[in-house]
């Protein structure tokens, strides 16, 4: 059960989504990926895509205009 942080700060769409896709692929089952981003569209983008993979995800606004997206790779 590893926790991996993915730094997507200052990256614009679609880089956060592509990075999320790539790092989620190499994770093991049960690992948690934390995507850090300050791009408001990325949270929408990533949450939608993760939902489509039927994986749980949670978004927390850690600071003004800075979010962390928690994704658990359940399968």
């Amino acid at each position, binding site marked *: 059960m590893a926790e991996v942080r993915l730094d997507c700060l200052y990256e614009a769409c679609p880089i956060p989504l592509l990075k999320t896709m790539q790092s989620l692929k190499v994770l093991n089952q049960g690992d948690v990926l934390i995507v850090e981003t300050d791009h408001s*569209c990325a949270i929408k983008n990533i949450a939608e*895509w993760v939902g489509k993979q039927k994986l749980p995800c949670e978004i927390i606004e850690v*600071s003004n205009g800075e979010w962390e997206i928690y994704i658990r790779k359940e399968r």
Partner: protein
Amino acid sequence: MKKVKTKKDQRAYFWFFSFLALILIFLFGITSPYLGYYWLFGILFGFVLQKSRFCFAAAFRDPIIAGSTSLFRAVLVAMAIMTVFFTLIQYNAVQGGALTIPGRISPVGVHTIAGGFIFGIGMVIAGGCATGTLMRIGEGFFMQVIVLIGFLIGTLWGAWDYPWWERVFISNSPTLHLAQYFGWTGAVIFQLVLIAVLYYIAKKYDDQNNILL
């Protein structure tokens, strides 16, 4: 080495700028009624864009990179609504004796495809079209300021090259207005059916494509 992050209460800014915007509506409005409307609609547009995360770049990019067409379908819905109301405006203007049909009805041809292609490359690299870029600057995503500078340079460059496009493509391209071919009712129905078909295809595409890089 975790940074301590604090959330600032920004409501004071909100009230300050709302107040400022309200005064500006009045000041623009007494200068010229249209300026007041432009300002008001600009603010409302920005608000809707920011809250809805509506992004034309994502609408045309996400179907290909993520197999998601939700924003593309949102554009189609917007076009369907726009079709009905713009046709009503145009119909009423023509019935009222307007000599030209209102709205931007421009010649369509090779230049449309070329322009769309160039703009498409630019907006995917920049991470936003014109509205998205402006909205994100206002939101505080500062990287887009670089995009805005590029946007201004591109616009000036485009204006510089425009006579060439005008001479080679635009002057001998046809100007189409569907109402000329199908009648007003027919044009609306034709366009709505076309949008409905595209919507159906987009939904099917969304359901079938689950892209995992």
